[in-house]
């Protein structure tokens, strides 16, 4: 290189270096993200961006974590800590790359292969660059609902993928033998290595420029700032203790048996405690997740409620939060609990925490959302090349809840995911033997309210060749609730069109291992967000606007909002006033007789 970056060791004002390092660590994770996405082999990584990248201190504290899966914010830090525990601080060296997909370590499913590079600078460990990405297949049972981890695929404990620069070929051979499409799996593996190595390179540049100690000191200050800001925001919440409850439809095994979700939040001074003791014990079906996910649930809720836009997440963001989650719940499950669909329940737990806080901080909380990825799994033999294919269809966007001062968003990915994208229709059709008949918003699905919930979506997908289809949607019977008098949005729904007839009366919206003939279709409808505040308080002009845009039907404008529209779509003010007045007096009469 013509002119290598020269180290700068002169005294620098702390505040300034801190800001420079803050930009620097974000750039590390940004580059890891870009490189993983651009070089990956499977659509779920390169198009949906279902992955998380992060930079950690030598002790495994989160420094910077890319915009990946919010539900995974704790899982990655715990994985690094488990790696440190496994090998000891002296057990890793330059040129090592560690790997695992152990579900109880990552807290999620076996699809989450996680690679980590210990970054050394001048002979000392200076941090870890880590990349988790979702592999579409790790072997194990195709379709159905698993009831233990052993049927979910290959388990790789924490070990060295690469030792002092030498790749462990035995491990590669084992993985290749256990997955259904080995070439693609190896492509994703290479992409993940590309990501962690580029993170290592970029972080090393920062260390070369400013030195290990000043950079780590700046990182400590960044964490302290996040902690201070979170504490200050927590202090502004009144002291008290609040509870809320909701439920999941069932665990897929005991059809129709509700799974309770109960949470308690206590706030005193600048500390908050989130108690998940009342969350259901681990279940038979594959909806369990490991202990780090219980903590993630609490951390995500805490971040959203206290300091959503202050700073990107790091270890300091959560120092003032205590989480109580006993072992053996659905979000702190122990082996051999089935984990494949780990991501569904935690979202409802977070929604329930938001619900608990409406009394204390109505302006900072949110009504419930669709809380499900709405993902179907398909596989079969492609007519073009006669080879086995496998893909997810989705995630589908759904409706988000309304807030005290704003409507909910329509067609947005659920809380489990952050920067996750959907799959373009044109791309899906180019790669798999399916045809989308519709992809649109579900009119009238948003919960009515002073502020309306966002709309869910509908996808109608036709099989062009026989395919195996599997979907397990929840929150069908516990639709996204409203707050402060706002109504619920529509629940999630799954339907099949078999030989031209629509079937949508599945007892639990879980369609397991169904074979579709060419011409049959599956239909995924995601729920709408809950409303906020009484619908009759919604500005009549905004209701008229919603009707013009088709978000709300003419009938519902009257039935739910008490807004009467004239022939040209404008508000009829006299009729509307009368309609709303009648409702108010009826409501008074109702409440006095109760």
């Amino acid at each position, binding site marked *: 290189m013509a002119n290598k970056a020269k180290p700068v060791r*002169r005294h620098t004002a702390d505040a300034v270096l801190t800001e420079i390092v803050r930009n620097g660590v974000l750039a590390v994770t940004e580059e890891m993200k870009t490189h993983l*996405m651009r*070089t990956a082999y499977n659509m779920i990584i390169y198009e949906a961006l279902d992955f998380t990248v992060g930079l950690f201190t030598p002790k495994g504290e989160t420094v910077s974590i890319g915009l990946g899966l919010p539900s995974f914010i704790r899982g990655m830090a715990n994985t690094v800590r488990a790696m440190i525990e496994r090998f000891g601080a002296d057990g890793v060296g330059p040129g090592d790359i560690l790997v695992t997909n152990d579900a109880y370590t990552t807290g999620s499913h076996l699809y989450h292969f996680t690679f980590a590079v210990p970054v050394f600078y001048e002979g000392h460990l200076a941090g870890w660059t880590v990349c988790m990405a979702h592999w579409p297949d790790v072997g194990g049972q195709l379709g159905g609902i698993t009831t233990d981890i052993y049927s979910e695929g290959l388990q790789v404990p924490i070990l060295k993928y690469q030792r002092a620069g030498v790749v462990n070929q035995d491990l590669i051979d084992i993985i290749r033998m256990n997955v259904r499409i080995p070439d693609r799996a190896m492509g994703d593996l290479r992409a993940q290595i590309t990501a962690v190595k580029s993170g290592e390179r970029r972080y090393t540049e920062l260390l070369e420029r400013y030195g290990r100690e000043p950079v780590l000191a700046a990182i400590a200050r960044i964490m302290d700032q996040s902690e201070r800001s979170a504490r200050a925001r927590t202090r502004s919440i009144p002291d008290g203790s609040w509870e809320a409850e909701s439920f999941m439809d069932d665990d897929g095994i005991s059809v129709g048996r509700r799974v309770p979700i109960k949470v308690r939040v206590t706030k005193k001074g600048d500390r908050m405690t989130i108690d998940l003791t009342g969350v259901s014990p681990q279940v038979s079906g594959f909806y369990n997740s490991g202990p780090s996910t219980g903590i993630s649930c609490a951390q995500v809720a805490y971040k959203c409620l206290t300091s959503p836009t202050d700073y990107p997440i790091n270890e300091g963001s959560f120092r003032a939060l205590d989480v109580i989650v006993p072992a053996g719940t659905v979000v702190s499950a122990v082996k051999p609990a089935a984990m494949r669909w780990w991501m569904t329940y935690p979202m409802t737990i977070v929604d329930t925490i938001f619900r608990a806080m409406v009394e204390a901080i109505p302006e900072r909380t949110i009504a419930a959302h669709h809380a499900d990825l709405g993902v179907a799994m398909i596989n079969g033999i492609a007519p073009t090349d006669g080879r086995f294919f496998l893909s997810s269809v989705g995630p589908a966007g759904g409706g988000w809840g309304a*807030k005290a001062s704003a409507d909910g968003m329509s067609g947005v990915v659920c809380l489990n995911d952050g920067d996750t994208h959907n799959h373009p229709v*044109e791309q899906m059709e180019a790669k798999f033997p399916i045809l989308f008949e519709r992809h649109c918003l579900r009119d009238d699905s948003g919960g009515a309210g002073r502020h309306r919930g966002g709309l869910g979506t509908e996808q109608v997908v036709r099989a062009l060749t026989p395919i195996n289809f599997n979907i397990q949607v929840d929150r069908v019977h516990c639709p996204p609730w409203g707050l402060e008098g706002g109504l619920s949005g529509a629940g999630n729904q799954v339907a099949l069109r078999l030989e031209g007839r629509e079937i949508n009366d599945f007892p639990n919206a879980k369609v397991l291992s169904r074979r579709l003939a060419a011409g049959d279709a599956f239909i995924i409808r995601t729920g709408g967000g809950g409303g906020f505040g009484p619908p009759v308080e919604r500005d009549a002009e905004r209701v008229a606007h919603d009707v013009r845009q088709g*978000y709300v039907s003419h009938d519902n404008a009257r039935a739910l909002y008490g807004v009467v529209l004239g022939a040209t779509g404008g508000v009829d003010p006299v009729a509307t006033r009368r309609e709303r007045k009648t409702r108010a007096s009826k409501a008074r009469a109702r409440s006095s007789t109760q």
Partner: protein
Amino acid sequence: MPQRLRRPRAPVASNRIAADIGGTFTDVAVFDEASGQMLLGKTLSTPRDLVEGINTGVDKAGAQVRDAALFLHGSTVAINTLLERSGARTALLITEGFRDIYEIGRINRPDAYNLYFRKHVPLVERALCLEVRERLMADGTVLHALDEACVEAACDRMVAEKVEAVAILLLHCYRNPEHERRVKAIVQARLPHAFVTASHELSQEYREFERCSTAVANAYIGPRVSRYVQGIDEHLKEEGFAGSFLLVQSTGGLYQSEQARVECVRMLESGPAAGVVGVQALARVLGLEDAVAFDMGGTTAKAGVIYRGEVMTTSAALVGGYNQALPVQIPMVDIFEVGTGGGSIARVDESGALKVGPQSSGAEPGPACYGRGGEQPTVTDANLVLGRLGAERFLGGEMHLDRAAAERAIRTQIAEPLGMSVRAAADGILRIAVSSMSYAVKGVSTDRGLDAAAFPLIAYGGAGPLHAAAIAREIGMARVLVPQAPGHFCAYGMLHSDLRYDFVRTWFTPLAAASFKELDEVFAALIGEGRAILKRSGVKAESVAIGRAIDMRYVGQEHPVTVDLTPEVFRKRDRDAIKALFDAVHLRRYGTCAPAERAEVVSLRATVTGVMKKPPPAAIARGTARVPAAALRGQRPCWFNGLARAIATPVYDRTQLRAGNRLQGPALIEEHASTTVLLPGDSARVDRWGTLDITIGED
């Protein structure tokens, strides 16, 4: 006052005029081919009637449009119409079943912890997203024929709704544009005054949301941009202009005004792209293969890259910030922008962190030192407090700066809350600004696997030369170049643009099975199309240059990288050489490659360039190593890099410098619209073209 780089030797006869309209200033550069003379003018932009700003700028340069053979133009009108949401009443015609894909978008939620997050806001209301019954399969075959009655019904609706612009997006039209073409013809017949765009005309890549967004953006800005271009066209004709009127595209290439009026979205990054082309031209003159272009103005800083003599481009951009971005799938100069400029505001946030930007004081009220009511400290205030800007010399003395106001703002809002001195605070503001701008430079260089440290940094824009030396140090770059008249550089760059037409054709095939015969045919068709458009333009190009590239990936990957085909590799039909080139590009970009893996072709790219005659570089008067006495304006106390003590720093008048002069840092070199800072330890040489060639000191 016109600024003259050379005294006119003869009355202006035939010339080329370049006008760049930015948010604050309109810059004009005039080049007279006959005499080789260059004239410059700079004036405030006139947002209400942009033509007026052009007139004043041309006047200030001492030129007249009737004497021009070419009028070249770059403007922010397209990007502003999009960002300000001041475009036309637009409708979207879309395949039945998919009217909401534009609103649904990619469903991502980057602002993941903000319960008040907002997604992109469509440019078309849902009520005007109208469905058309038709359907193509992924391979372009027709599943359902186009229902023309349905299109007619949509037209009835659009007429009733007084729609001004229409975008058409039909699924898989990139494989078969027939349905889109037919829909467009019907709409044009029924709504003759509407601006109509079909998606395949702008982008032939799959991903319906992105292509839809591109087509809608074009339709939305179309009527206004088209009127704007037409307005200038008419004005030029009234003034007796009989030459060709060309606009700068986001690629830095030129296109005719007739085409600009139809494909408006191609001029989104018009001005910044011209600057990068200027850097390419300068690099050529100076014999540089690689360079980083760095442009800093009042609100933002931008960086681009010249690599092996070529401007680095990208095939898509996100307009309006990542969280709520509207994608535009159009090739552009790869420009990385950060919200740091002279007007960026510094503040201490609630947790005690010092922040600079992205909020800007803008032109009104402006930095505290402008004395127009601005009370928040800015990057410009920090420069003034540290002595780098002369209070009396801003904009050639047209504007006086208030040093006491700058100090007060920094003291009360930064220094006291953080318990530091005013100078340490000012120094901190500059260091943070410099750090953030260095990420723009890295964003286009190290992010692409290029070693920024080995590249010279070419700095321009009003504030670029003030900070370039510090940015170079931050990244470890050894050399900074400041061209003549850096404040007019984008207009200068336009004079170096060529007519350029880019074509992409999707062509999936394994590299091992790729037929060179077919490859030849596709390239020949694309190139033929380019040559035909060039011919129709009526502009006489000196020569025609052809570029061929292949987008490639490993079998199984989705995202390709673009591999430029050298004429030699193409001629030799050397598959292995193409594969090796691809492996090398992958390695450079991502740090890894997999030579054992098979590669495949995704699309073919051809570029047809009508090469224009360029202004030859103008030499300045020769001198010796010693700076002439007339160039020294005096000395000013300056503070550098947190030094406790002021250094008496010499201030030079750039117009008095001579080729061969050598300067030693610290030093300040002032000219009309800019000041160059040499830090202690830096040295500079004035080259024969007047460029300040700065060697960054070992510090």
